[in-house]
Each structure stands twice: as C-alpha cells, then as structure tokens.
C-alpha cells in the first residue's frame, strides 16, 4: 500500500508530560483518515507532529520517526519550512486573517513564498476557491474582508488557503467543531470531493463524524493507539473493548 504518513514509535512530551506514548501508525495515500478519541487524548498534538508545527510550542519534544511519503521529516537535514509547504492545515476555529481580503487570504502563501509569478496567482486563487466550493459565494467580493462570512464560509476559505499551496496532505484539526450543522454538512461534502486527490487526516472528537466521512479510522486514548483499521470494520466489529465503548458513546 502507498503510504502518505507513517509514524514509528512516536513519543511526544510537553516538559515532563508524556502526551503521545509510542504510536505506530500508517496512513495510506488518498482518502480520509480519521483520528478520533476523547478530548485530551493527544489527537491534536499527534496531528501537529505531521508538519512539525508542534515545534512552535517551546516545551514540546518529539521522539521517534514520522515518515512523509517515505522520508523521515525529523531527520536533521530536513527543513520544516519545506515540509509545511507540502502539508496544508486547517484549524479548529475558522481563522482567516482578519486584516487581509478574501483574495489575499488565499494568495498569501503563494505571494510570500514567491511560488508563482504574479499573473498566475489570480488563476490559482480562483482554482482553490472553486476546489473549496466557495467561489460562487465570494467571486463578487474578493476584495472584501472575511469578517462578514459565516463560520462555514470562513472555514472553506481557510481550506482554500491551504489548497492554494497545492499540498499533498491536508491536516484538519476538528474543522467542524465550531461550525453550525448546515456548514458542517457542506464541509463534509467537500471532504468527499477532496479525498479523490488528497490525503486528508481528520481529527475529530465525534465518532459519528468519523463514521460518516472517513475511510480509515484510528482510535487514540490517553496518548496510546488503541485500534486502527478500515472505518466499517472498526465501527461494526471493534477488536478492543475501549473502542467499542467509545463508538457506542459509553466513553466520554
């Protein structure tokens, strides 16, 4: 199987706090891989090791390996900047830059990284907004600021911002946690379209969402990987008692 991300004996510490405890995980390329588990189980931390964003936290320490398409991104010769350009990220709270227009929000990464000549940027912005299913809603107000968009629209704008960089992997940290049900449905619909071309790693605390949208699912509990497999199998026939409790709602 073609792997997008693989972790080998991954440990993460915040100071003395051992948050991820020796996780071995294999995430196949293309499709939606859900990381589910109760709050505080280390899902978001784990996600942030996949693009080395974890290093923004001063106290965080990572041990073990994370392989991105076969290459260990924690080996000393790897520049995290280059890694992050291949790995887009969407956050829990819809966070378009409030001081930039809708257009500039999408164009920012391309402009500041000088990835594209000026005239190509406009095409790419349009492409990304179309991909994120937002183009029709914002095409007449690209120069407006994002403050007037709804939560769901803001989140799709943020997805467009990540897509504009043409990443190979898209990390999503509970992208619908702060979105109303209609917006959530639209974003889940969008995920279905994107998964044909991208590897999506979706962190969610909702087993229902994992069951609805993902192809594979991993269950994380207190920093340990309890179970992983095709979504159907994990939900219909879990091997571990904890997993069964979690998916049936008996575990917070």
């Amino acid at each position, binding site marked *: 199987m073609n792997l997008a991300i693989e972790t080998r004996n991954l440990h993460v510490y915040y100071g003395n706090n051992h948050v991820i405890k020796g996780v071995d995980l294999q995430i196949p390329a293309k499709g939606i891989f859900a990381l589910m588990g109760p709050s505080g189980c280390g899902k978001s931390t784990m996600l942030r090791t996949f693009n080395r*964003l974890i290093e923004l936290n001063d106290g965080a320490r990572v041990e073990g390996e994370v392989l991105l398409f076969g290459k260990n991104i924690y080996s000393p010769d790897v520049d995290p*900047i280059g890694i*992050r350009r291949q*790995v887009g990220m969407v956050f829990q709270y819809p966070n378009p830059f409030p001081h930039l227009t809708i257009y500039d929000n999408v164009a920012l*990464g391309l402009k*500041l990284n000088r990835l594209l000549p000026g005239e190509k940027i406009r095409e790419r912005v349009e492409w990304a907004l179309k991909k994120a299913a937002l183009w029709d809603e914002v095409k007449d107000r690209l120069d407006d600021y994002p403050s007037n968009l709804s939560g769901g629209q803001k989140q799709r704008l943020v997805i467009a*911002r990540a897509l504009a960089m043409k990443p190979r992997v898209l990390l999503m940290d509970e992208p619908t946690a702060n979105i109303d049900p209609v917006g959530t449905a639209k974003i889940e619909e969008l995920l279905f379209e994107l998964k044909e071309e991208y590897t999506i790693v979706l962190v969610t605390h909702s087993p229902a969402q994992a069951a609805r949208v993902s192809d594979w699912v991993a269950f994380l509990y207190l920093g340990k990987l309890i179970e992983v497999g095709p979504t159907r199998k994990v939900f219909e026939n879990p091997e571990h008692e904890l997993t069964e409790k979690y998916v049936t709602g008996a575990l917070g």
Partner: protein
Amino acid sequence: MSRNIRRVKERAFLCGVALLTALAVLPLFHIIMTVTVRGLPEVVSGGLRFLTGTLSEGGIGPAIAGTFLLTFLSALLGLPVAFLVGLYAYEFPNSAVGRWTKTLLQIMLEFPTILVGVFVMQVLVVPMGTYSAIAGTLSLAIILTPYVAVYTHEAMRQIPFTYRETSFSLGLTRTRVLFRVLAPMARRGILTGGLIGLAKVAGETAPLLFTAGGLYESYPHSVTAPVGSISLLIYQLVQSPSPADHRMAWGASLVLLLIFLDIFVPIRLSLREVKL
C-alpha cells in the same frame, strides 16, 4: 426596610465614586481651560506673527519649528529601533535576552527623564562642545523607544496563537511570519504606540534642558547647532520677570496643547474602530 438601606448604600457609593472620578479628571479640564483662556488672547492678537515670527518679533516660530524637527528626528531614530525591540521581545519571550529586554523596557519607561538629558549631555554635548539638535533628538529617542517597544510588544501579544500556527503551516519562514503577517495584523496597535510615543516626546522638557540649547531668534538650519522647542521656551519665559514674557508663555502653552491634542485625540478615536 433593609431594602431601602441597601439602596441608600448603593446610591452613596455611586456618588462617592463619581465625586472621586471628577476630582481625578478635574486638573485636566482645568489645564485645558486655563491654557485656552490665558493663551488664546495672546495667540489671536499676535496672529500669524506669533506663530511664525522670532522671539524679538513677538513670535515663537523657531520654537514650533524646533519642536517639529526634534519630534520628527527622534521618531526617525527611535521608531525603527523600538519596533524591532518590541518584535524581539515578542518572538523570544523565554530567552534570557528576551526576558531582560522586557524588564529593562519597564525600567526605562519609568526612568527619570532628566537623567536621560544628563546622560546625553555627557556623551554628546560635552565632546561636541555645543548643544545641538542631534543631542536633543537622541535624548528624546531614548525616551520614545521604550514606550513604542512596549506598545508593539503588547499589540503583538494580542494576536491569538492560531494565526501564528496558520502562518507557519503555510510554509513561511520565521522572518516572513513576523514581518509580513503578524506585524501587519497588529499594525493598528503598533501605530497607536508610535503616535503615543510622539505625543509624549513632543511635550518633553527635562531631557532637552541640557541637550537642545534653545534657538528662538532664527529658524533651525543645522542638526549640529542648538535648536529650540516650545516646551523649553515656556520654561525659559516663565522664569523671566517680565509680564509680557509670561503672556507669551501662555500663548506658547496653547500651541503646545493643540499639537499634543492633534496627535492624541485621533489615536483615541481610531482605537474604537479596532475589530479582530
């Protein structure tokens, strides 16, 4: 019954607070009123001559020019330094140097300004053998820098962490994240800090006493020559025994007040518009 007592207590407390608040802001209104009442006739009767003429012509033109020159030059010198220091303190809060920077900025904020003047006199005025605009500029810049740096630092700290994460997740370098994304995001706060710093130094007197020298009979023409300022002129005029000089000092005070309010009021108004 007890309900009435509670009400009376509440009333009494509110009245007390209102009274104390009024006492606290009374001096401000008193200053504005007195300066206007006593300065306005002088400015009006002097007219353009008061604003542009030299001291012997009955005007404070060179002092106004000096204040603008000193404020402008100290901004030119101090603002970039302050901006960078503020960003540094924000970006490296846990490094030893970063922690020291923050502490030292706090001390500099409260540092007696006259000592800054004494310091600059030692390092510039004595070696050069003359008071000068650059000496005045340097002491004002030293006072301006911590203000603006602290404001910059605070403005940056207001930015939620998620924007920092987002910027890095787009594969931007630290420099670009800081200068091209986060600093522009905090631009309003940083700008406010800059203007407050300007308003502060535009009215400073003590640091200029031993550095700027004073120049009131001709307009400033060189940065290595002495220069005047409105605040310095007021200080000198008030010490004179002549009532005419006192009247002139009131007029100069009004001009200084207007310059200060011109910088300060827009800041306060613009602050209300901030939305994140």
